[in-house]
């Protein structure tokens, strides 16, 4: 089989250069920019950044997976102390490195000192948390004090996230806060709404989301690590809405459901106003979509009583189709409005 004709990018070069020539001739490109672009096009650089990072990431996953299985299968000969010591060496080594190259803490965003820093920190943090978990699992150091067993990693995670300015570890800390409170909040579990089925759990989720939303608010007001706000707000908003809607559907036949749905609408209204101010289409859309689900639920509650007749089905289908189309139009409109003030858009 022939492998000729793979040279595509050489062919694109003149096209690009034509475009720059044209723009330059029209006076839209300054001489300086034109010259810079021309130089770049004549000796283009080909970046392997993404590819090499993927290979690195794969390597780490395979290596840790392989080593983990290896230890798991030979735990009788290796012994738990040896495993613990090994994990300890990893996290001590990682943190030694991280503290050595760390920038001092400031309230703003800190750029990591070099490429590998974030990954070393992540490895160190994961092994630290694993170490604590292992101690509890094997030796029950916290005995039956499960609160403390999850509280300690959580505090450590929040500390590391803030001190080293790492968004990924902040996510881990938020998840761990949920575990400490007794709920699971990984993105996947949020999608499996079926787990929100007892009133106790629903209310725990509500408390949890309130904490996160307050944290998001304070992050902005006190101006500490402002870029962390998105993570808090993102988790907080989704959990709050899912919990409120679950409360609504859980007490569907009950009058109590109206309280949940009212709170949901109030929260959606607040989110809508705030996000509109901050020009975040994402949160505006989330507020609208969740309240749409609540409205649909309310309509069903009002219309459906005992027997579902054919006309009811027709009415509901038409109502849903009409409102879905209306919703799309509304969102398109808002999207346009949010864009209108932004020059670069």
């Amino acid at each position, binding site marked *: 089989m022939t492998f000729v004709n793979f040279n595509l990018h050489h062919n694109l070069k003149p096209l690009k250069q034509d475009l720059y020539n044209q723009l330059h001739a029209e006076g839209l490109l300054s001489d300086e920019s034109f010259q810079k672009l021309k130089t770049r096009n004549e000796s283009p650089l080909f970046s392997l950044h993404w590819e090499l990072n993927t290979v690195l990431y794969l390597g780490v996953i395979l290596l840790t997976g392989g080593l983990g299985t290896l230890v798991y299968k030979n735990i009788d000969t290796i012994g738990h102390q040896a495993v613990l010591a090994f994990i300890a060496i990893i996290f001590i080594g990682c943190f030694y490195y991280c503290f050595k190259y760390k920038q001092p803490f400031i309230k703003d965003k800190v750029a990591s000192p070099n490429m590998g820093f974030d990954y070393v920190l992540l490895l160190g943090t994961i092994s630290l948390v694993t170490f604590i978990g292992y101690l509890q*699992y094997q030796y029950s150091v916290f005995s039956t004090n499960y609160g403390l067993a999850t509280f300690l990693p959580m505090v450590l995670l929040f500390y590391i996230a803030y001190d080293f300015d790492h968004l990924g570890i902040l996510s881990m800390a938020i998840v761990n806060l949920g575990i400490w409170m007794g709920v699971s909040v990984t993105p996947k579990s949020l999608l499996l709404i079926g787990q929100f089925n007892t009133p106790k759990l629903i209310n725990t989720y509500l408390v949890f989301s309130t904490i996160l939303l307050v944290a998001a608010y304070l992050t902005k007001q006190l101006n500490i690590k402002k870029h962390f706000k998105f993570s808090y707000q993102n988790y907080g908003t989704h959990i709050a809405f899912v919990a409120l809607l679950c409360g609504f559907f859980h007490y569907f036949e009950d009058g109590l459901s109206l309280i949940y749905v009212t709170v949901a609408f109030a929260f959606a209204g607040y989110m809508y106003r705030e996000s509109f101010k901050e020009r975040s289409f994402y949160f505006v859309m989330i507020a609208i979509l969740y309240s749409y689900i609540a409205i649909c639920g309310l309509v069903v509650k009002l219309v459906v009583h005992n027997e579902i007749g054919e006309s009811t089905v027709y009415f509901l289908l038409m109502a849903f189709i009409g409102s879905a189309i209306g919703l799309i139009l509304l969102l398109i409109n808002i999207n346009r409005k949010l864009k209108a003030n932004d020059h670069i858009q």
Partner: protein
Amino acid sequence: MIIYNKLWLNNLRVVEQLQTDHEDGYVTKEQFIAIKQQYPVGFYLPKLVGRVGFFILTLIAIALSTGLVSLMASGGGVIDSPYWWLFLSIAFYLCTEGMTRANKFFHSAIDNALLYYSAGLFTSAIVWICNDPKYNALGEIPQFIMLLIAAVLLTLRFADVVMAIGSCVSFFSLIYFAWAKTGGLGLATMPFMMMIVAGLAYYLITKIRRDDKHAYYHTCIDVSRCTVLLVFYLAGNYFVVNKLNNLLHNLDDSHTQVQLGFFFWAWTMLMPVALITFGIRDKNRLLLRLGIIIIAAAAATFRNYYHLLPIEIMLTLAGAILLLVAYVIIKYLKAPKHGITYAELSKASDWDKLNIESLIIGQTTSQVLNTGANPQTPFGGGSGGGGGSSGSF
């Protein structure tokens, strides 16, 4: 043939190119804004977040409409016929056409959802018609001819990548079934037939790609090239050939020998190397990335036949080798060599802005974190059941 305003398409190309240059710091903001004003694009182009929302909402709306219309029509028993779905598919297609024109959509998620829904209905209707004895059971060949024609026409009309992939899939299915029709010899030579056809197809579409006249379809062509190369590789992959061979001779999976086995092993193992080599030499990202992906396929194929080492040792070794290779290359490329660099050349994309990475970390590491949680915690929740650390350590 293409439905979109060609002037806007051309302008969009200019703006997108300059946007990248602007983000990379080659063009100042003022210049970029001036260029945007000089090259106006009238399409409705929402951002990623909006697109995801619109797509889901549109799917909900059209699925409900299908339900409503079918419910209304269900009296006469028409919905038991594939022609009803064919009719709906055409109706939705007309809807796509009308809305795209009226609202200046250009892959704005609403038109995508409508198009995919219509194409999906069309495919199921055609498959139904061609396989149900009630409608003469025309068989696979007419089925894939019809699907191919429809997919190609839709690709040309909407320059849509999913339709382009659909065209490739229908094309190769058609070749497969047509060649299989020739009998035993056909099936025996199937790998070579597929290789030749895929090679020719790659050659042809690459040639088309060079012509600037087809610039509107560049993304579609690139996606098709990917698909075609994948078929080219899989046609000679030992595992695929072995499975096909067993199917042909009605053998079970314990038979692992095929004729010309050496050739297929060489193909399985050397193709990724060749792709990566050509990718680096020609600075062609498509070949390079495909090569990296195909290495995994080659490794999995090898592992399927030869259990030289237990899996955990294989994983450990592979991980160590990958890390070493990446480390050596990064060190080597510290200063750019032969126009290749490790440095990041372009800025953050939409994905980075969404913090996807932190979400993934939150998901993948939660198992590790879960060790202390117990069903008896005072808060009563704690799903995920605490087995985390035993899984990995």
